[in-house]
């Protein structure tokens, strides 16, 4: 078991023949991901990386029975790509693209209400990996190891940092979900935590958040009510000033509730093993699992 993606996932790449799409599709295939084709409008019928290219996601799904799509198209077209994938019957859409206008995502979120069996992860995220089965995204595969810790994070490289600490302590991962750093994302921290709590293979969860919004505290309150597995939490941005956007469009402190300190306090009260230092994520998980 694992969540969202595994060795049986049939993955297509939207924006397949572009620079990013080509580079990361190659890496995903090398990792062993079952990539079955790709989509680039206007290039249908061609072969790229020894795989078929289609004009539309609909065509690709019909021809390859794909159920997972990873999106690398430029931000101006990414919302369109997500909606196209949903209508074509893709079950898990992982959108890597960064810089999608918020108003586009307001529409996408509303649009996806009509597709309850489709799950969007991202945008502006590193993707999802089930180690040694499927890498659907841009994370470095080699730092991961198969195991029992689930990871949920709004960040890219900070997730790699946490995963690396886990792996070096001998703690492998069930599935790592990069949910993305934008104000509107498909899968929230809480939804990702729920998936991992329901996964029998996952024994513990690392939850990495950031300043801005209320996703981590929403998840923390649910965890307090439903906790079955230990959760280690970290919130980046304890030293961030109010009102400034810290790189991620969603990482901005709006009020008193979405500071790192406020979130960490609530998480602690909800029984989460909160670490002050990102260097302690791995060992705290190890101790929590003892």
């Amino acid at each position, binding site marked *: 078991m694992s969540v969202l993606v595994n060795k049986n996932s049939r993955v297509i790449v939207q924006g397949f023949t572009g620079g990013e799409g080509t*580079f990361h599709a190659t890496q995903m295939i090398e990792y062993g991901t079952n990539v079955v084709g790709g989509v680039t409008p206007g290039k249908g019928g061609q072969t790229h990386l020894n795989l078929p290219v289609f004009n539309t996601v609909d065509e690709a799904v019909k021809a390859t029975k794909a159920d997972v799509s990873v999106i690398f198209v430029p*931000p*101006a077209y990414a919302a369109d790509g997500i909606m196209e994938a949903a209508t074509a019957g893709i079950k898990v859409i992982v959108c890597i693209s960064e*810089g999608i*206008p*918020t*108003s*586009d*995502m*307001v*529409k996408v*979120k*509303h649009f996806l209400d009509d597709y309850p069996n489709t799950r969007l992860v991202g945008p502006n995220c590193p993707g999802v990996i089930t180690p040694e089965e499927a890498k659907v995204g*841009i*994370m*470095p595969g*080699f*730092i991961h190891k198969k195991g029992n810790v689930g990871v949920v*994070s*709004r*960040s*890219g*490289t*900070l*997730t*790699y*940092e946490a995963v*690396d*600490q886990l792996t070096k302590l001998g703690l492998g991962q069930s599935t790592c979900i990069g949910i993305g*750093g934008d*104000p*509107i994302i498909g899968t929230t921290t809480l939804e990702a935590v729920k998936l991992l709590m329901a996964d029998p293979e996952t024994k513990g969860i690392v939850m*990495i958040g*950031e*300043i*801005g*919004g*209320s996703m981590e505290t*929403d998840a923390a309150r649910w965890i307090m009510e439903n906790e079955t597995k230990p959760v280690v939490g*970290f919130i*980046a*941005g*304890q*030293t*961030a*000033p109010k009102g*400034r*956007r*810290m*790189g*991620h*469009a*969603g*990482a901005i402190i709006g*009020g008193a509730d979405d500071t*790192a300190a406020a979130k960490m306090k609530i998480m602690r009260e909800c029984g989460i093993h909160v670490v*002050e*230092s*990102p*260097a302690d994520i791995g060992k705290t998980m190890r101790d929590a699992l003892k």
Partner: protein
Amino acid sequence: MNLHEHQSKEILKKSGVPVPTGIVAYTPEEAVKAARLIMATTGADSVAIKAQIHAGGRGKGGGVKIAHNIEEVEMHSKNIIGMTLVTPQTGPNGKLVRKVLVQQGVYYPGPSEIKEFYISILLNRATGRNIIVYSPQGGMDIEAVAAETPHLLFKEEINPIGIQAYQARKVATNLGLTGKAYSQMVKFVMSIYDAYIKNDLSLLEVNPVLKTSEDDIFAVDAKCAVDENALFRHPELAELRDINEEDPAEVEAGENNLNFVKLDGNVGCMVNGAGLAMATMDIIKLSGGDPANFLDVGGGANAKTVAAGFRIILKDPNVKAILINIFGGIVRCDRVAQGVVDAYKEIGNIPVPVIVRLQGTNALEGKQIIDDSGLKVYSAITLQEAAGLVKQMVN
């Protein structure tokens, strides 16, 4: 991207929002000319002289004055243009005022009572939908209203298919309006929502919205912020950027594709990825230092970007040490290490100790390059080691 008040009002006007007549002036002479014109054309017996800077609370800092005659226009504009305006939002150093908005006075006496309201539109992140936040307590700091009189703060969520007329009627009703003012307010709400959507705004705040003594509705003040991710489809809005309002180091960083935010501490940092950059700032604090900046070099860390990062961080005389924290994924650590070495050579002299922590793809090769370079650079592999080095440097 924040806009000036006068720019925000131009945007609102295009969507049919009534705003008082206003003219921007860069000198007291221009302000006098503008005031004469406004008084002649509108019949107003007063004008407001309003400092144009990207910060709220201008009135409290003396940046907004009412002039009842031309002498007062001249006096106030002389005082305001060129002043360093300190408001609760500018920080202690304040901001230089380069221009003022001369605006028609609309607080004239008349048959009906003058009232001020608050209306803003923004994204509700929890639902992924836009909301109109409004209150009959206008002209005040809305956070104070939320804290002291939360029952006077209303919210109306807008379905992504668009605002409906009943929602605007609800706003007007909750604001206690009737008759002409009520119908004017319905139009006002529909128009500001149109402006918010058409211009891909991330915030639209009108505080106060004024009901005049003749039951007209005006946007007396306005503050708009544009979603930077949407600027590609609004070239006309991209042109409104005022780099005078931004930190020069942040502007330079942007030109080098670096994401930089200036802070007040003594340890600079350069990191790949926003989350790790924030976490690195936190590590610096936990090690006894204070972060001097946020700096995300993104996925393309190389000699050029690293050199630019060094130059920008070193502009700050408070920086006592620099921590470079790279987790190599797609970015290879050996390339970053070479970038650091090359940047060192290019800049010549880096007067503060530099700690380089490389982890991930080719981390050991990267460490080797740093160690072999003979430069005064401390290298680390784990985050814990890097934290220990920061501690040594700041003590």
